[in-house]
C-alpha cells in the first residue's frame, strides 16, 4: 500500500484529537498523486475530501488496502503494517505545532528517497514532499 501523510517538525499528526493543521492545496496534491486509483481514508479525514467514487471511507483501511491502493493517514499507527508499505509520500508542514499523537514509522530510516519537491500551500509558505520507495 502507498501511504500519504503530513507531519510537523516533530513528526506530529494530532493534538487533542484534532489535526494540527490543514491545507487545501496539499489535499489537491494528494488527489493529483492518487489520480483515479483507490484512496482509503478514515472517517476522521472525511471533512478534507469531497465525496468521490474512488475515495473509500474505511476505519480499518490498513487491514484492507492492497499493494496499489493509497491510504491517507492522520490518526493511525503504521509500525505494525510496515511490511505492507511499498511507497510513502511524506509531506512536511515545516512548522512546529503541539502534538500528542505522532507518526510512529519514519520512512527515511527504512526506505529509499526517490524524489522531493517543495510547493506553496494555501496557508503554508513552504510544504516539502518526500517520496520514499522500498
Amino acid at each position: 500500500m502507498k501511504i500519504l501523510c503530513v507531519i510537523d517538525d516533530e513528526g506530529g499528526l494530532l493534538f487533542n484529537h484534532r489535526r494540527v493543521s490543514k491545507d487545501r492545496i496539499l489535499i489537491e496534491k494528494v488527489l493529483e498523486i492518487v489520480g483515479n486509483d483507490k484512496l482509503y481514508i478514515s472517517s476522521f479525514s472525511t471533512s478534507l475530501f469531497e465525496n468521490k467514487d474512488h475515495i473509500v471511507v474505511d476505519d480499518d483501511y490498513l487491514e484492507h488496502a492492497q499493494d496499489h491502493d493509497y491510504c491517507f493517514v492522520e490518526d493511525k499507527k503504521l509500525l505494525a503494517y510496515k511490511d505492507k508499505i511499498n511507497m510513502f509520500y511524506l509531506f512536511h508542514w515545516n512548522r512546529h505545532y503541539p502534538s500528542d499523537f505522532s507518526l510512529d514509522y519514519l520512512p527515511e530510516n527504512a526506505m529509499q528517497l526517490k524524489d522531493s519537491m517543495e510547493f506553496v500551500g494555501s496557508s503554508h509558505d513552504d510544504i516539502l514532499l518526500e517520496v520514499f520507495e522500498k
Partner: protein
Amino acid sequence: MKLKFQRFLSAILLATLLLTGCASETTPKSEPKTSEVAQDKKTENKKQEEQKTTQNKEASTPVTTTPQTNFSLASIPAYSGKPYVVVNDNKPFFPNNLNNKPFESYSNLDSLGRCGVATACITKALMPTTKRGSIADVKPSGWQTVRYEVVGKGSAGYLYNRCHLIGYQLTGENANVKNLITGTRYLNIEGMLPFENMVTDYIKETNQPVYYRVTPVFDGNNLVASGVLMEAKSLADNGASILFNVFCYNVQPGVTINYANGTSSATSSAQPSPQQNTQKAQSKPQPAQSTPVNAAYIGNKNTKKFHRSDCRMVTRMSPANKVTFDNRDSAISQGYNPCKICNP
C-alpha cells in the same frame, strides 16, 4: 374652627394621595394594581435584569481580569521535561457567549509593573501585514540580560526573550508593554510558539475566528511569571478544530531561576556565557546565519541527504544510517544532496 381646618387639611392630603396613586399606575387594566412598594421592587428587579444583560454583554467583550476561578498554580505539577501541561482536559475556562467580532484587549500593568491577562478574538483582520519591528526598548518586570551556552550559541543563548503574551503573528501587537513578559527562550520557542503556529495557520486557512486568551501566572509578588495559561477555541465550529487549555512552564533546562527578581544561576554544567556583543534577545528566533566553514554535517546513508548538525531530521535519523562530513564539498563529492529543510 380648628377642627374644620384639620378636616380641610385631611381632605387636601387625601386628594393629593389619590392623585399620586393614579399617576403611578402603569399596569394594564386586566392585571391587578401593584402597590408602590411592589412597583419599586419591580423597578429594582428590572434594573438588576438590565445589569445582568450588561454583564453578559461585557462577558463577551474584552476580559481584563483574571477570569479563571478553577485554576491555581498549586494545581500545576512540577516541570518534568515537557514544555506544557494540559489543564482542565484541554477545555478553556471561557464564558458561554463569546464575542466573535475581532478585538484584542490587554490588562493594565499592576502595581509591580506586571502584565495581566490578554484576550482576543483573532481573525485575519487583526493579523499583521508588515514585518515585526524592534522591541528592545521594552523591559518587562524581572528583566535580566544573561546568556548561557546551554540555552544556545551566540544571540540564541540569551536566557530571556521579551515574550509576547499574544504572539505577533496573531495580532501584530509588538512593542506593547502590556503584551510582553520576561519569558525564557524555552517558554517562547518550545512552549508557546507551537500553539501560536497552530492558531495562525488555522485562521489563514479557514478565515474563521479563534477566541484566544493568555494569562501570565505569577506566584505572590514575583516579578517573573511561573508560566502562562494559554486557552483557545475556534468559534465557527464550536472548538472542533482548535480547542486547548495548557499551562506553559517559564523554565529553562539547565538554569535555575529566581522568579522573585529574574536573577539566575547555572546548574552544575551550565555556565553563564560572557557578554561578547551588544546583541539583544529577540522575542522569536531569527533565521539561521550562514554556516561556519568548520561546522559538521550529518549524512543519511539511506536517503543520501546531508544535514546541518542541528537539523531536526538528524534527531529522527537512525544511528545506523548516520555518516559525518567535515564540510559540504566532502558530502557532495560522495553523492549526498543537501537537505531542503536545513539547507546546509
